[in-house]
């Protein structure tokens, strides 16, 4: 039997052109399925693909053979095998990543994000949910609302999914009992309203038998609909709502084929735009009007949210990648301090105080995160105190960026409110975030412009400011060589200042210990002090172990190009330990000192230091001369 919601073979056979004309007009819905293997999720997706004829005979033959060999459904077809992907996972019988599936009905094309339900895979569900308009939360009718049901619902809601379908699956195994369905629906409603889900659609189904999937089932005469597919086909996607919002276009690329054409390419994040519309370029705030909407198919009279276009503007205003072109009378804000929800996605835990790349729409900036205000337990939704976030951890944090970004609250605009964090060294995507609001400190703390600037101060001293940043293991010879360098500079009438690791810890940084977070804060403060001193025109010398590359790079970024000179005092661990000037290695080896660099805390050697000193090949005196030569030469 051919189901009416799917490909109508008759129309295809008789009048393919009429069929195609009708199919040109289909809309697109992206949804996510949440549930574990046990809930029959893969089976449901397999069923959707099968019923919509997305499975061909050769695939079906393979499926039947597989079902008999490794299937869990006896002699019947195991649809789950159709959707399990990578070889290793298939053998384990679990899916461990996000897979995207496609099927189509008469009315819509669907993209399904298939994500696993195991706790350690919060990351995958968040990824799949980020692009979804709707979430299908699967529940095993025999088990009812479980911890994972709460988790899935919370995550779907967190990512801003507006439509929730509660699919009570395996109804065939509870005798299609209305009481079971009602009980589960009631329990879910109580929980859903707790987390702010006001609306959901509950459907009793059997993915295995096919009940209430494409059409209402005779086995559930008490259920008046809609069937799952019917609901998916008719649910409002939200395109109209996006178009009703103010116009925003994050600029991706400036199109300059010749001197006469300057276009700004991007995808509309919200709203509509027409030639003649008044627009504001952010963050500069300059205003102009839209001249043309240029496409290969000719100029457009209007572009709407979701479309990728190229705009030309009436005036020559500065505008480049990262800027946002917005409705002149309703522009978004810019800020550099925010509260946000963060989902941690990397094996390495979040490090408070470390700088990460933050990418939001087409803007990329450097951002540092504070210790979480609290972490959210995704199972109980309790708020817990936390110092960091581990893989799959979700928390509310404050973060600051090195320059203002144009943004909107995630709840108002996914594109201008959703961001990712990227590790500066490994380039891995380590977190996803959703901005809540700006902390508004940026607007209130302004830079005070001073009349005497850093160049004038340096000129008075007749020198060029610089920061000689010594790094190396404890006992490598940093302080010894740094001292010599300063003495020599002094003899040469150069104005300098030596910031020594141990000395700073007696004063400015006396509140800091030796944990990873404290070490980072230690370096950040020293970096800020060194920057002020170099602004004063001094040649600053610092001698800190500074074991982490990221923090050294952070300090480099604080100073004008070329002023940060990384001096790597390269002494092998064995040699430093043999010298053990302060007896610290002995203590660390005896377990009396924790987090000791080189022993139980890592040292990340510089990859391209400006100066490298091999202390096994030269004396401290020779090293100091070499450094001075490089500095002044």
């Amino acid at each position, binding site marked *: 039997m051919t189901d009416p919601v799917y490909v109508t073979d008759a129309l*295809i056979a008789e009048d393919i052109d009429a069929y195609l004309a009708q199919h*040109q007009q289909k809309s697109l819905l992206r949804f996510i399925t949440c549930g574990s293997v046990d809930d029959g999720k893969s089976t449901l997706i397999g069923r959707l693909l099968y019923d919509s004829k997305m499975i061909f005979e050769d695939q079906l033959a393979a499926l039947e053979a597989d079902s008999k060999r490794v299937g869990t459904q006896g002699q019947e077809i195991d649809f789950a095998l159709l959707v399990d992907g990578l070889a290793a996972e298939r053998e384990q019988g679990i899916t461990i990543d996000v897979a995207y599936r496609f099927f189509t009905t008469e009315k819509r*094309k669907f993209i399904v994000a298939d994500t696993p339900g195991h706790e350690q895979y919060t990351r995958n569900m968040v990824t799949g949910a980020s692009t979804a308009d709707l979430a299908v939360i699967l529940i095993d009718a025999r088990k009812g609302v479980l911890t994972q049901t709460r988790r899935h619902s919370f995550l779907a809601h967190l990512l801003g999914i507006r439509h929730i379908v509660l699919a009570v699956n395996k109804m065939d195994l509870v005798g299609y009992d209305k009481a079971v369905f009602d009980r589960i629906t009631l329990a879910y409603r109580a929980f859903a309203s707790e987390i702010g889900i006001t609306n959901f659609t509950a459907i009793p189904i059997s993915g295995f038998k096919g009940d209430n999937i494409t059409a209402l089932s005779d086995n559930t005469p008490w259920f008046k609909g809609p069937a799952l597919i019917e609901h998916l086909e008719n649910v409002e996607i939200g395109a109209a709502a996006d178009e009703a919002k103010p116009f925003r276009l994050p600029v991706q690329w400036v199109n300059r084929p010749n001197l006469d054409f300057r276009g700004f390419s991007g995808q509309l994040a919200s709203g509509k735009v027409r030639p003649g519309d008044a627009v504001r370029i952010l963050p500069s705030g300059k205003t102009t009007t839209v001249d043309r909407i240029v496409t290969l198919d000719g100029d457009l009279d209007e572009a709407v949210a979701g479309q990728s276009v190229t705009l030309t503007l009436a005036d020559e205003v500065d505008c480049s990648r990262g800027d946002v072109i917005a409705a002149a009378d309703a522009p978004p804000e810019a800020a550099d301090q925010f509260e946000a929800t963060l989902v941690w996605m990397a094996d390495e835990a979040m490090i408070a105080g470390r700088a990460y790349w933050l990418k939001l729409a087409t803007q990329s900036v450097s951002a540092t995160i504070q210790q979480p205000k609290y972490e959210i337990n995704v199972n109980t939704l309790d708020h817990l105190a936390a110092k960091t976030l581990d893989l799959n951890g979700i928390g509310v944090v404050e973060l600051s960026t090195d320059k203002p970004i144009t943004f909107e609250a995630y709840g108002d605009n996914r594109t201008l409110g959703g961001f990712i964090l*990227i590790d500066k060294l490994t380039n891995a995507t380590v977190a996803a975030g959703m901005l809540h609001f700006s902390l508004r400190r940026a607007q209130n703390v302004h830079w005070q412009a001073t009349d005497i600037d850093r160049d004038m101060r340096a000129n008075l001293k007749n020198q060029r400011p610089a920061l000689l940043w010594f790094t190396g293991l404890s006992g490598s010879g940093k302080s010894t060589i740094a001292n010599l360098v300063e003495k020599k500079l002094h003899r040469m009438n150069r104005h300098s200042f030596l910031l020594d690791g141990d000395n700073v810890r007696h004063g400015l940084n006396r509140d800091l210990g030796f944990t990873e977070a404290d070490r980072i804060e230690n370096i950040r403060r020293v970096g800020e002090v060194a920057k002020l001193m170099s602004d004063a025109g001094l040649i600053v010398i610092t001698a800190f172990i500074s074991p982490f590359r990221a923090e050294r790079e952070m300090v480099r970024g604080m100073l004008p190009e070329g002023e940060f000179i990384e001096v790597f005092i390269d002494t092998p661990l064995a040699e430093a330990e043999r010298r053990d000037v302060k007896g610290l290695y002995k203590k660390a080896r005896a377990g009396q000192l924790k987090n000791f660099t080189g022993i139980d805390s890592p040292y990340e050697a510089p990859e391209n230091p400006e100066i490298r000193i091999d202390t096994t090949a030269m004396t401290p005196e020779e090293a100091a001369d070499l450094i001075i030569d490089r500095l002044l030469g």
Partner: protein
Amino acid sequence: MTDTLTHLDRLEAESIHIMREVMADAAKPVMLYSVGKDSAVMLHLARKAFYPSPPPFPLLHVDTTWKFKAMYELRDRMAAESGMELIVYQNPEAKERGINPFDHGPLHTDMWKTEGLKQALDLHGFDVAFGGARRDEEKSRAKERIFSFRTASHGWDPKKQRPELWNLYNARKAKGESIRVFPISNWTELDIWQYIARENIPIVPLYFAAPRPTVERDGLLLMVDDDRFPLLPGETPVERSVRFRTLGCYPLTGAVESGATTLSEVIQEMLLTTTSERQGRIIDKDGGDASMEKKKQEGYF
């Protein structure tokens, strides 16, 4: 209320967004162009993405010397029309050793395509390569990212791929690493055909049925495209009305018997057909169920 944008509009906008996003971080991008229908759509989208500029990257055809003649013709025509530079790369070692699909089996694909691609990327120092793979093609591709990272030796590690959220792509990479970007990941075979029809995109005539000289071998209908095709004893080419659902090296690509001579008829056949698109390709089958995945780890596109 109806949606202003259709599913094809949304897929198009997404692909264009992806291509433009690549331009932000790429030092030297290139578009892999295999002359098939997916490549045709990808090239068309690139022209739309950067109009009125020509796409700011060259086309790279990793050639095996065994493609259908009609493919070479369309390739040269499209390169000229788009105003893009066309780079054709043939693995010199494969050429010298006379590697061919008749005598060398899997080695043919390995040397011409897998090795050829790596050599071409290294030779030109391309750091981003656009490819026309789709997620609906094959099970392991359903999980492939849109931005897929390769090590300096072109390896693909399914465990090290970055999560892709919203439409935010992280294209940062270390020196030597490269990225394969698949802008039409979310398109299905039907979407491709519908879009070709809607946009009037030129494709190789082999996709349409015509009388062609063919022999039947190992259950596949192979077209005798030139006189390099070694006929077995008792084999004589028979003229059949055939067309191709995918295009590759002619001795490795099976035809289907068909009377579909227009786009509508091709789509009609596709919708009524009962076998999947890649079935006509030998490449998926050697090595069993997980063969495509294995090839990918070795660096096949």
